[in-house]
């Protein structure tokens, strides 16, 4: 076996034997992550804006203490109607598919964790603390995101503040890391080959490499195969149609619940949020309020109002969405007109019968109320709404996150929060 020392600690450069490690592999993985994480950050920020968190004194806001981190917020548009479906589908699907790239990137630089001396200078010490925020941050974001889409709410606290503030801590370290490493990354990609260990300035090239069992391109192929498999078993829950059938491991993949026009994905069933049949029976009344006026309407009254149709999807923050469904019901702006808001209706506060859930009261902005496709839907695909899809009446607004499409609506208050 040769004259190997009996034990080589990981702090020794000769402990790390893989011939794959080197600036080129790390640079390629880093470049993929630079593009991917930038996309995740932007779509994540858009998702927060899509909730209209600054509306109604922060009624839709799960991170009201955001301070300057909310400076970029803007009124979320209602078109194109698939906007949130696209941005949030990308956020979750790309996030899941990037997990192998993150793991490979961390593998490629693991010898640096054990370098001696642990701290060379004050600057090196600061950089190592920053790297803890970088590595802890990326894994924290992966874990909270991946658990949340699987309805596994084990994390300490509510998902929204953890994932949102965690993202900012991570991005602070990420941006610094990108600036510091970009020149070396570009050089590694230009050179296309790794230096020999003796000439290596990155500390990644193995001093005593093992015989290779796979090429560097083969290793990248393995990472790509992992991303492809995760992407293929996830993307269908966002793309819908036939693709949903192959989303075998996604929480809202593989099939649709039930049959008939109401057979499409459900976020929370009626039973799960405490809706009882007697609350939604013939005694159910919708209260419409605003400008000092109040109207109470039964389901027959609503069906007697002008009915309009809109083909719109449901798109959840968890990344899944439905294809466009043909909803029919009363336009929100027609309901606003009932209480005197005729020309330019204001925003609306929507309240649900549901007993649990953070969004049983939610606010919609004036642009959402005014869009002619925004409905208080009574029917879908030509049939009555099912209990799980919000019977007797639900909100459907183009491009809004699913939780703002309130089900089992009991009260609409226009212009007053």
């Amino acid at each position, binding site marked *: 076996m040769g004259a190997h020392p009996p034990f080589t600690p990981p702090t020794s450069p000769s402990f790390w034997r893989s011939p794959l490690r080197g600036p080129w592999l790390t640079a390629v993985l880093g470049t993929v992550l630079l593009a991917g994480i930038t996309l995740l950050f932007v779509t994540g920020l858009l998702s927060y804006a899509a909730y209209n968190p600054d509306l109604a004194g922060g009624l839709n806001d799960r991170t009201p203490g955001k301070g300057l981190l909310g400076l970029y917020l803007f009124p979320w548009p209602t078109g194109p109607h698939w906007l949130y479906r696209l941005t949030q589908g990308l956020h979750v699907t790309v996030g899941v598919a990037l997990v192998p790239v993150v793991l490979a990137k961390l593998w490629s630089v693991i010898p640096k964790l054990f370098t001696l001396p642990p701290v060379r200078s004050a600057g090196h010490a600061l950089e190592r603390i920053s790297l*803890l925020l970088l590595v802890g941050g990326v894994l924290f974001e992966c874990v909270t995101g991946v658990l949340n889409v699987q309805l596994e709410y084990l994390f300490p606290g509510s998902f929204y503040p953890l994932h949102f503030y965690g993202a900012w801590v991570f991005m602070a370290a990420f941006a610094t890391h990108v600036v510091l490493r970009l020149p070396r990354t570009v050089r590694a990609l230009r050179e296309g080959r790794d230096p020999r260990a003796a000439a290596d300035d990155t500390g990644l090239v193995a001093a005593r490499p093992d015989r290779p069992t796979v090429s560097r391109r083969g290793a990248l192929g393995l990472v790509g195969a992992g991303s492809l498999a995760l992407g293929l078993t996830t993307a269908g829950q966002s793309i819908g149609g036939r693709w949903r059938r192959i989303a075998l491991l996604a929480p809202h993949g593989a099939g649709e619940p039930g049959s008939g026009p109401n057979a499409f994905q459900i976020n929370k069933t009626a039973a799960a949020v405490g809706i009882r049949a007697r609350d939604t029976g013939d005694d159910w009344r919708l209260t419409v309020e605003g400008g000092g006026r109040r109207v109470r309407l039964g389901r027959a009254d609503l069906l007697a109002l002008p009915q309009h149709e809109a083909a719109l999807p449901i798109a959840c923050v968890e990344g899944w969405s439905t294809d466009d469904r043909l909803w029919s019901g009363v336009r929100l702006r027609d309901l606003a007109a009932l209480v005197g808001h005729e020309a330019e209706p204001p925003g609306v506060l929507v309240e649900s019968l549901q007993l649990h859930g953070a969004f049983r009261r939610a606010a919609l902005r004036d642009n959402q109320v005014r869009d002619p496709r925004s409905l208080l839907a009574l029917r879908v695909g030509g049939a009555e709404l099912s209990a799980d899809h919000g019977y007797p009446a639900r909100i459907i607004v183009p491009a809004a996150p699913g939780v703002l499409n309130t089900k089992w609506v009991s009260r609409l208050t226009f212009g007053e929060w």
Partner: protein
Amino acid sequence: MRERLVRGRARGAGAGGAPGRRPRYGEGPLHLLLMLASFALAGYAGVRLLAGGQWPLVLVWFAGAALLHDLVLLPLYAAADRVLVRCLPEGTRHRARTGYVRVPAAVSGLLLLVWFPLIAGSTDPAWVAHYEATTGLPGGEFLARWLLLTAGLFALSALWLLCRTVQRRLRAASRRRSETKQRSADGG
């Protein structure tokens, strides 16, 4: 110039500094500015991240994720890979053969890692009841689906290996035939 701003003067021996005396900071002024800006922003968000009552747990999750990955997950899969490489026979085709097992095993492992709550949950009746009551979808199938996907991945890899082996043998046989022909032509 840029490199110098970030990294400072050539480490150890600054051109204008006293020879042999290392600057205490060890990096350039841009490095320090970036670090300070980064920590200030991380602090601004971090205070908010830790504002809830469960802040010690949040810290544990944040640092624990890094520790668990670096000291448990990575050594585990690296060791598994080493065992695989050692188990397969040495030889000229050794390198290629490793990939045929490594790729499906790694892909299956990744699927398990990411979807572990669903896959493990689908064996627990209480979890299945909760999932079904929430989504209206069948919740007991995730383990079966993962096993079938894993079977499919290994079967696909086996089929590929088989095709490559047959292709190689056929090529070798035709080369031998043409060499024999060549020799008999030369000899005749």
